[in-house]
């Protein structure tokens, strides 16, 4: 049974999920999750390893489609439109819902190419001058411009881990998405790089709806305004971050928050 705090139902929800189940073959990885994601806040998914929070996140841009054995049921709407419906194209969906992965995965191309790739394939910028503008804007928003402006032709893989991850965030925002999904974006980074990423998430919130999966409760508390706690494929509790951390309703949430397991 899911506990949802009052006032969490959101008329203006960016993403609305209803009774979503995900199956890996016979195994049920996500069990009947319903949630409204607000466009104005950073929403964090927390929970112990293997609880299905990443799997659920990957439903929002249909990345589970790439796994042959995965099957998603239930309804997921982006701005009221069914993302599995006939009118929604998966390529367009992924342009609207960007994603940043756990391990930085820049393309083995130049920094410039990494950012310009998305706008190019979607035809968002035709001329080189337009692309230059997009590249600079995206890198600036990702807080990376000053560090790399003199070496845009260097390989993206030559950057440090934290820079690579910010490059990936810049790559995601280069196509002007409406939502950015982040799958444990700082778990492979050192504390300083992590702090930069968290700062960046703060800067980006408001402009984009951000959903972040993390197994660090401190991180969730620092960057998010909404938190959902997942356990064994179920969403246990969803509410304002301050409430979840100070005044959880469910016993399991309390146990996890206080470090009883996880």
């Amino acid at each position, binding site marked *: 049974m899911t506990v949802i705090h009052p006032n969490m139902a959101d008329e203006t929800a960016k993403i609305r999920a209803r009774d979503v189940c995900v199956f890996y073959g016979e195994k049920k990885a996500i069990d009947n999750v319903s949630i409204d994601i607000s466009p104005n806040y950073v929403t964090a998914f927390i929970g112990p390893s293997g609880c299905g929070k990443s799997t659920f996140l990957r439903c929002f*841009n249909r*990345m589970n489609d*790439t796994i*042959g054995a995965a099957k998603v049921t239930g309804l997921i709407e982006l701005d009221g439109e069914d993302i599995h419906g006939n009118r929604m194209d998966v*390529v*367009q*969906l*992924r*342009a609207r819902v*960007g*994603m940043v*992965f756990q*391990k930085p*995965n*820049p*393309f*083995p191309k130049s920094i410039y190419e990494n950012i310009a*790739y*998305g706008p190019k*394939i*979607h035809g968002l910028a035709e001329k080189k001058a337009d692309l230059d503008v997009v590249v600079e804007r995206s890198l600036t928003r990702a807080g990376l411009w000053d560090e790399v402006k003199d070496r845009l032709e260097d*390989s993206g*893989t030559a950057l440090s881990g934290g820079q690579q991850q910010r490059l*990936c965030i810049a*790559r*995601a925002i*280069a*196509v002007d998405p409406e939502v950015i999904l982040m799958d444990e974006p700082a778990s492979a980074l050192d504390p300083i790089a992590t702090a930069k990423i968290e700062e960046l998430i703060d800067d980006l919130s408001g402009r984009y709806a951000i959903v972040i999966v993390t197994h660090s409760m401190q991180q969730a508390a620092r960057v998010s305004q909404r938190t959902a706690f997942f356990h064994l494929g179920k969403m246990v509790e969803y509410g304002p971050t301050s409430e979840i951390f100070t005044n959880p309703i469910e016993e399991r949430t309390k146990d996890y928050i206080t470090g009883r397991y996880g």
Partner: protein
Amino acid sequence: MSSIPVGDTIVPAAAAQPLGPTRTDAFEKRLAKRYRDERNFRLLGLGAVTFSVAVLVFLLGNMLINGIGGFQRAELEVNIDFAALGVEGDATSLSAPTAVQTLEMQGLPDAVTAIAEEQLGKDAAAQISPEGWRDVAAALTSDPSLLTSKKVFHIAASSELASALQGEGSPEMLALAKKLSDQGKLARNWDWGFLSRSDATSPQAVGIWGALKGSMLTMLVTLVLAFPVGVLSALYLEEYAPRGRWTDIIEVSISNLAAVPSIIFGLLGLSIFLAAFPDLRSAPLIGGMTLALMTMPVIVITGRNAIKAVPPSIRDGALAIGASPVQVVFHHVLPLALPGMLTGTIIGMARALGETAPLLLIGMRAFVATPPDGFTSPATVLPMQIFLWSDEVDRGFVERTSAAIIVLLVFLLAMNGLAIYLRNKFEKRW
């Protein structure tokens, strides 16, 4: 446990604790054995490498020593004064396509023999290669102004005289060779013509160019057919094919195809390609098609491995910003997999280049005295030429065979070198 000083002596700490299991003699012995094992293993590996390098060096050295002679031939020196030769012609008639025939009808061969008799003696002139006059004709057609001047020609000696120069043959011939060589009229000269002539009946007149060109044309057909088909099959199987029984069957079939003995492919080429194009017997086109069948599975298998080695995170990254599957394949997967695919291609091509058995069956073992002028004209290939020459009785062919082997190896090295260059050019790190 500390010791407490009593007077000026120090009482040792109470009997030492028993040594831990990693501080016993037995452990140290085991440790020494571990290091010994490691040292032995390293020596064993080094020995294996040394052995293979030694074998390779011996093989190549032996081939080089034997083969160098194959690039030389015994030639007789004849000084021809064209003004006195009695051959007529001018710039136009000598540049006509039929010029050589015209010269032959005008009696150039006899005239050359006559001059040789005059300069070298009757016995020696009899040992001028019957085709020797063609060198003179070629010189004339390429430079008509020679008609009014003199030139020294080195004309191939007969193979008997050539063997005699090497110390083999009848006593008369040995004496003749000694005499001529003392006079400086007979010598073994560097034979550049070997690289531009084709097969012939006499080892003195053979060349490798016909077979080399045949190999190049055949390889080109093989590459053009096998590379795109192999790469596209690998991409489809890896990226698009639904996992299932059919895919498994195709996968197993391709693996088996790569292991089929090459002679079977020759039979296939014979019964299918030659049945469809009966006029193209011995043609590089058919040879290339047959070898492509053999090469393709190798490219598919290595190509699939190269595609599998592309990190899934790159694929995810591209998909997540909205690249369509075909864009993911062509913008990301293929460029990263290409170096591996090239390696596979070169392995397959190298195997095809050295292949003789399948080509035997589709008629590429014919005696072809002119280089092929296209994909459909009769040709032979380098390994086949080596096989044919090694079968010849004439002693002179032994060195020519070694020389042909050197040409084959150089061709192979050039091909591999190109592939390594391309691979390094495309290789990217991630």
